[in-house]
């Protein structure tokens, strides 16, 4: 789906009804996670729809959606690039890697590329300081990062997109 475009009520109905038919109460967070997985963010009308389906006040759903860092209310890219700026990575040049990634993706002050392929974020420690500086793209961790490796790694994910488009 296009993050700026129409969002499908049926898809949310699918997630809510098919996934959680037997345990609607108490499943709010799991449902929001599923929606976040599918759209890479929580669309406003998805929150409204989920609240209505579950009979939970919208204010409560909104409260939960804004409480957890895992949820985003603004559209995010398909691939999440996390650049570690924890102490070890910072000392070993994580900042320069981040700059290089942002330049490469033409990000300026934005977090997400215009084509919604990548969202770049800073994180404080991924828990593998001996591999510093570390960059994580989705579930892949890249150790001992250098600026020179950045274009190649990003291309790998861009190619995935092109392969799908064809």
């Amino acid at each position: 789906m296009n993050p700026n475009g129409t969002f499908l009520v049926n898809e949310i109905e699918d997630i809510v009804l098919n996934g959680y038919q037997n345990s609607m109460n108490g499943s709010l967070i799991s449902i929001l996670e599923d929606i976040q997985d599918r759209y890479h963010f929580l669309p406003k009308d998805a929150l409204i729809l989920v609240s209505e389906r579950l009979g939970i006040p919208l204010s409560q759903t909104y409260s939960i959606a804004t409480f957890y860092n895992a949820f985003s209310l603004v559209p995010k890219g398909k691939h999440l690039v996390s650049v570690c700026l924890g102490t070890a990575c910072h000392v070993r040049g994580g900042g320069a890697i981040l700059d290089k990634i942002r330049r490469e993706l033409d990000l300026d002050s934005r977090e997400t590329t215009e084509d919604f392929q990548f969202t770049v974020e800073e994180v404080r420690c991924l828990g593998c300081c001996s591999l510093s500086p570390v960059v994580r793209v989705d579930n892949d961790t890249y150790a001992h990062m250098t600026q020179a490796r950045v274009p190649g790694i990003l291309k790998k994910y861009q190619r995935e997109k092109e392969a799908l488009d064809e």
Partner: protein
Amino acid sequence: MINITIDGRKLQVPEGLTILEAARENGIEIPTLCYHEALEPYAACRLCVVELEREPKSQLVASCVYPCEEGAVVHTDSEMVRRSRRTTVELLMASSAHIPLIQELAAQMGIAEPRVRLESNDCILCGLCVRACKEIVGVSAISLVNRGVDKKVKPPFEIASRDCIGCSTCVFVCPTGAIKLEDIGEPKLVHHWASDFQVVQCRICGDHYLSPEPITDYERLFAEGA
């Protein structure tokens, strides 16, 4: 009945009472900010902490939610309790030292100036308005959004609430005056949640009541797309 000792007084209280309820019923005052008799206790402000004697050492518990236990020995004004409350009030003063209620507590505890300062804020996040809106009014128009230093009370999407009925219970229950009801002349009333309500005069008693109007913010939200 349960036997409990509060500040050296041996009391017999019905089962199921919290320490705060037992103390207040017996004329022992415990300061609170987020507690309201009409609402579920919330244990957020930590002002109602009391010392509960335990082996090997006493512990602090929030008296508004802690049930009376058989044989419990409780101190509501010990050194341990006073220290904890002083810190709580001092932290509240960091952003809300201009609020009379906080000034009163600070004066009682002899705190002149807090050691830390934050941006001034009327809201102390006691959650009374949120709980009143949910438990008494039953519409849940507002909630606590975000977390940590960004936490605040807002309607969903931080726009005029579709669920707010303009009852102003939140304004009434707010202990600091953070939620304001503003009379901007007939026939409009505006309050903190940025909802506009038409005031209608009752033909029989002459009093005014609020009638919810369609809210344009929601139309704008859907026009934007998700």
